[in-house]
């Protein structure tokens, strides 16, 4: 056994003292403080004890505990407690104190930093009246705490003068030979200076404040309320902006179709990757493409940019032919059927396309063939023969998806013609072992067939030039850049653009008249043809790179087609096409713990979302809240309920509702006069800052991050109301009433700002809020101007409308039912539209279903007892915590019900004590 220590390290003091006190047989080795003794720790950590088993102990407290135990003195519970206290409470304070004393020369600050821990120790020692911390004999705890205090007590302004018990204990321990000898070895009489080089290597202690704002280990939403320091200037600037009031210029005009680029405006063309028609889109498709693009398009419109948002279904290709065969329909019938399904789903999700088209149109043929001929004329197409599998029985060449066989890499028996699902490797269909035609199960033969290839290598340098410019001036997500780079790094190869199929855009070349374009060549051209079906002046968008900025939204698997292949087609065609300026790709969204599978009924597909009874706005909110932005994320029912209940209901909805209710109940529905004080200006500054962050992030399409700032504002607002208690002040004297007025007025204006910021995310709720507040339409463009300007848009005297709650609670049992329903356990034949636990069939408008759950009761006065109210508030909070804990643990229902009853009773008492209407809010589901 060997103990490794270094000079000047206070933790080594503990270990050495313990070693000497216990007399355990063990070698001691002094090493340089930078030596990495413990093999698995990346930072040098000392002391370290190499145990006989070969394991290492690197915690000084664990070392002390071990040495005492080997010597027959096991730690008592009290000893455990002191050791834990030392590690979690004393050490952080000591780090702070030593940092100031040793590195900053402020030894006078030491006693302040250590005041708390010293008091705790003094109290405990004087109460117990024993010579040592845990009783009559020395324990590991005594040595560990002694070693903590020894350096600062030996050499700083810190004295233990009035802390008599502590002083007596410290002197008693310090007098032990073990301690004296350890101190001499580690500090060599140099006092604090002996620790200087050790301290320099330690990370600067974090102040408790910055720790709270940068937690790695917490739910960001709950902790981001950490106070930001607001400067005087910020407060004054915010107050000045506030006083400016609304713009006189008219709000963003209603869209006039067809939208065309305008001189002197920011003209933004937004596309969302075209969803493939043969399937119902799932949540991943929705968040990855259309919903993200929709939020940005709505936002741009509110910012006053000239936006055009197009999308449509991608309808050609083998998968459609396959599906048609399965359902016994023609490909055209399949497309018609599923195009309608897609349309209605996006409509339900309130995806506000300017035009939602499809790729099976004449324009598509016209434009695709034009691009083809231009590429052909310019020598960017080459001919080659390809070996392909052909099923003689079905009389056709087999597309990759129509072949199955044994994977040549991993021998997985059901590998597809393009990829193996087991090992994930890409496969050339002719390399499959024992290939089978998926349709008739016959063995296909290898035939060669002539095809056309896009000569990507020839276009590579042009492409790189353009990419260099686009990625450096535009907003490309990191994954988009990285995927593109890796494609270029591997070198481009010619890519086949033709297929032996019927369902596709025909290749116009006489030598290839039996063939169609491969979907990857064809599909992106859909953006152009869909726009052409929207307006005959489509070239003003697509052949106008100087006036138009193009944003492409997609999931990351689509990146190479948008960043490499399609740009090459357009560059090669040399017709001044608008190329992508900003490429926004999401990561993957995972679903709970299992795989999404349509066939097994697992997961949520677009058409089912509305059957959940959860409003479209709430779906949008949650999907955007977990948007896989920068990293993968997961959809979970429980989390959705949690976010709905904690963020929408208790935070956002609660704040907006309270603000409105105060105006209604206390000020007859008219916004009161506001006299801003220091505190109000501080709040304005905080809110303005959040608004500015929101705008910066939205401009950069950080949609998920921007959403957090909206929620921060309502958190600030709730806190502000909580601290100022307008419901109490309104009953006070003139100045108090005036204060209640200001707080109410500021709050209701923040509610108005929130409605504006929410608009891209939750359009229906946003509109409901503005209707309730009777907000002037110009509030939108005013507040989203420039970097964001938070003005007073509901001035004194403004009459608001009827206020009602915005959100409804999602109950655990409801969520549990949904989880089961979409978890694949249900028999297939169950009627899909059955709404068991679902209340309020959802529609786009039902986001504002009146739900009394958060209604703030502001009834008539009973006997108000503030002291009792305070106690009861505490009791309610504790009981609430208990109920939540029980629910989280999935305790028995009867137990929960009993505790909930207690909680409701406490709340009733609290309401009485606060002088509110004690009638409990009506139960959910029973509409008033």
């Amino acid at each position, binding site marked *: 056994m060997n103990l490794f220590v270094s000079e000047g390290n206070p933790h080594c003091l503990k270990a050495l003292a313990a070693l000497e006190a216990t007399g355990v047989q063990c070698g001691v080795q002094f090493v340089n403080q930078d030596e990495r003794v413990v093999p*698995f*720790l990346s*930072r040098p950590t000392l002391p370290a004890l190499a*145990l*006989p088993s070969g*394991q290492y*102990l*690197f*915690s000084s*407290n*664990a*070392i002390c*505990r*071990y040495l005492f*135990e*080997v010597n027959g003195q096991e730690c008592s*519970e009290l000893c*455990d*407690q002191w050791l*834990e*206290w030392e*590690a*979690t409470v004393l*050490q952080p304070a000591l780090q702070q104190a030593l940092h100031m004393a040793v590195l900053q020369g402020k030894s006078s600050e030491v006693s302040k930093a250590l005041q708390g821990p010293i008091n705790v120790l003094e109290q405990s020692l004087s109460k117990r009246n024993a010579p040592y911390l845990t009783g009559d004999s020395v324990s590991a705890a005594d040595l560990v705490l002694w070693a903590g205090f020894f350096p600062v007590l030996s050499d700083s302004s810190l004295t233990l003068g009035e802390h008599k018990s502590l002083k007596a204990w410290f002197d008693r321990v310090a007098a032990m030979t073990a301690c004296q000898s350890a101190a001499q070895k580690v500090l060599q009489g140099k006092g604090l200076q002996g620790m200087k080089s050790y301290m320099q290597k330690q990370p600067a202690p*974090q102040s*408790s404040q910055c*720790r709270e704002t940068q*937690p*790695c*280990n*917490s*739910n960001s939403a709950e902790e981001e309320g950490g106070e930001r320091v607001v400067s005087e200037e910020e407060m004054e600037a915010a107050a000045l902006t506030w006083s400016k009031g609304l713009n006189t210029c008219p709000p963003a005009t209603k869209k006039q179709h067809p939208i065309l680029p305008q001189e002197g405006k920011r003209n933004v063309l937004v596309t969302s990757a075209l969803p*493939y028609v043969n399937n119902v889109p*799932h949540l991943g498709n929705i968040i*990855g493409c259309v919903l993200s693009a929709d939020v940005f398009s709505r936002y741009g419109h509110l910012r006053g940019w000239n936006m055009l948002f197009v999308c449509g279904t991608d309808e050609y290709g083998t*998968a459609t032919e396959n599906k048609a065969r399965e359902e016994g329909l023609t490909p055209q019938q399949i497309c018609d059927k599923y195009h309608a399904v897609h349309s209605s789903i996006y409509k339900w999700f309130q995806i506000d396309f300017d035009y939602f088209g499809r790729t099976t149109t004449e324009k598509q043929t016209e434009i695709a063939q034009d691009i083809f001929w231009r590429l052909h004329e310019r020598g960017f197409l080459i001919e080659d023969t390809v070996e392909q599998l052909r099923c003689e029985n079905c009389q056709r060449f087999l597309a990759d998806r129509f072949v199955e066989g044994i994977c040549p890499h991993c021998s997985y028996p059901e590998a597809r013609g393009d*990829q193996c699902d087991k090992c994930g490797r890409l496969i050339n269909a002719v390399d499959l072992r024992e290939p089978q035609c998926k349709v008739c199960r016959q063995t296909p033969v290898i035939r060669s067939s002539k095809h056309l290839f896009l000569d990507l290598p020839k276009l590579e340098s042009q492409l790189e030039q353009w990419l260099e410019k686009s990625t450096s001036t535009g907003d490309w997500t990191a994954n988009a850049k990285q995927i593109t780079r890796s494609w270029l790094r591997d070198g481009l190869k010619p890519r086949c653009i033709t297929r032996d199929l019927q369902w596709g855009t025909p290749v116009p070349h006489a030598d290839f008249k039996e063939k169609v374009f491969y*979907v*990857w060549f064809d*599909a992106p051209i859909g953006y152009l043809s869909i726009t052409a079906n929207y307006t005959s002046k489509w070239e003003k968008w697509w052949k106008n790179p100087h006036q138009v900025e193009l944003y492409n939204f997609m*999931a990351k*698997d*689509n990146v190479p087609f948008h960043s490499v292949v399609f740009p090459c087609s357009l560059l090669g065609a040399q017709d001044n096409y608008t190329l992508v300026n900003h490429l926004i790709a999401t*990561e*993957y*969204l*995972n*679903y709970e*713990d*299992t*795989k999404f599978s349509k066939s097994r009924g697992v997961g949520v597909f677009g058409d089912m979302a509305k059957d959940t009874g959860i409003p479209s706005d709430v779906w949008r909110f949650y999907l955007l809240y977990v948007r896989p932005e*920068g*990293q*993968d994320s*997961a959809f*979970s029912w429980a989390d959705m309920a949690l976010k709905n209940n904690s963020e929408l209901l208790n935070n956002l909805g609660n704040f907006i509702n309270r603000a409105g209710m105060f105006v209604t109940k206390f000020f007859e529905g008219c916004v009161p006069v506001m006299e801003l004080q220091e505190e109000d200006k501080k709040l304005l500054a905080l809110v303005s800052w959040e608004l500015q962050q929101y705008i910066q992030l939205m401009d950069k399409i950080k949609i998920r991050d921007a959403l957090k700032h909206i929620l921060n504002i309502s958190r600030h607002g709730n806190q502000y109301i909580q601290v100022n208690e307008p419901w109490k002040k309104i009953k006070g004297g003139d100045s108090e009433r005036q204060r209640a007025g200001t707080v109410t007025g500021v709050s209701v204006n923040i509610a108005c700002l929130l409605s504006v910021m929410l608009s891209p995310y939750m359009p229906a709720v946003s509109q409901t809020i503005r209707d309730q507040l009777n907000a002037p339409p110009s509030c939108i463009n005013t507040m989203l101007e420039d970097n964001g300007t938070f003005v007073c848009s509901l001035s004194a005297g403004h009459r608001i409308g009827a206020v009602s709650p915005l959100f409804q609670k999602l109950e655990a049992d409801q969520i549990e039912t949904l989880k089961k329903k979409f978890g694949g356990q249900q028999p297939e034949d169950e009627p899909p539209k059955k709404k068991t636990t679902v209340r309020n069939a959802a529609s786009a408008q039902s986001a504002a279903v009146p739900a009394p759950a958060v209604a703030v009761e502001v009834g008539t006065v009973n006997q108000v007892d503030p002291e009792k109210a305070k106690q009861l508030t505490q009791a309610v909070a504790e009981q609430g*915590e208990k109920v939540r*804990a029980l629910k*989280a*643990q999935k305790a028995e229902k009867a137990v929960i019900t009993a505790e909930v009853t207690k909680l409701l009773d406490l709340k009733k008492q609290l309401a009485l004590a606060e002088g509110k209407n004690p009638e409990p809010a009506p139960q959910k589901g029973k509409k008033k």
Partner: protein
Amino acid sequence: MALRELSSLEKYLGQKKANKYSTQGDKKVPVLQNNNGPPLVGLVTIACHLAKEAKRPELLGDTAESRAVVQQWLEYRVTKLDSCTKEDIKTVLKDLNLYLQDKVYLAGNQFTLADVFMYYGIHPVIVDLAIQDREQYVNVTRWFDHIQRYPGVRHHLPPVAVLRNRIYTSRHH
């Protein structure tokens, strides 16, 4: 948070009656009122006490060495892990990953309280990791998945999928 961990531990230990806890200070350090003496303070201290009460001393390690190792990781949890910043977390994961390379549990081959509480503490970190990172810290992920599936441990925390589940299909090629 700490209280939930303790109540999950009680369930794991099969205690019928839940203990009453209060908290102390801004950091909400848990406190257990103790009939046989002064109250116990601190997550680790209380957890060890519960394990002893439940006659499950093996959860604290069965040799002096393993007991010290268990305590060391419990301390690591409430100090290093609980107070680390976003940058530190990479180091923590890297170190743990290396440490767990040749171990099933934190204390070697035996499941202990160190696993339970490290799991509780690291759960939010793992939740936040991108799938790629989960793959990078493969030993941590493997250990984490093992512990979350350990009968009776998970309780208050949602399960984390550690394997890649695509819900997007690659089309177009």
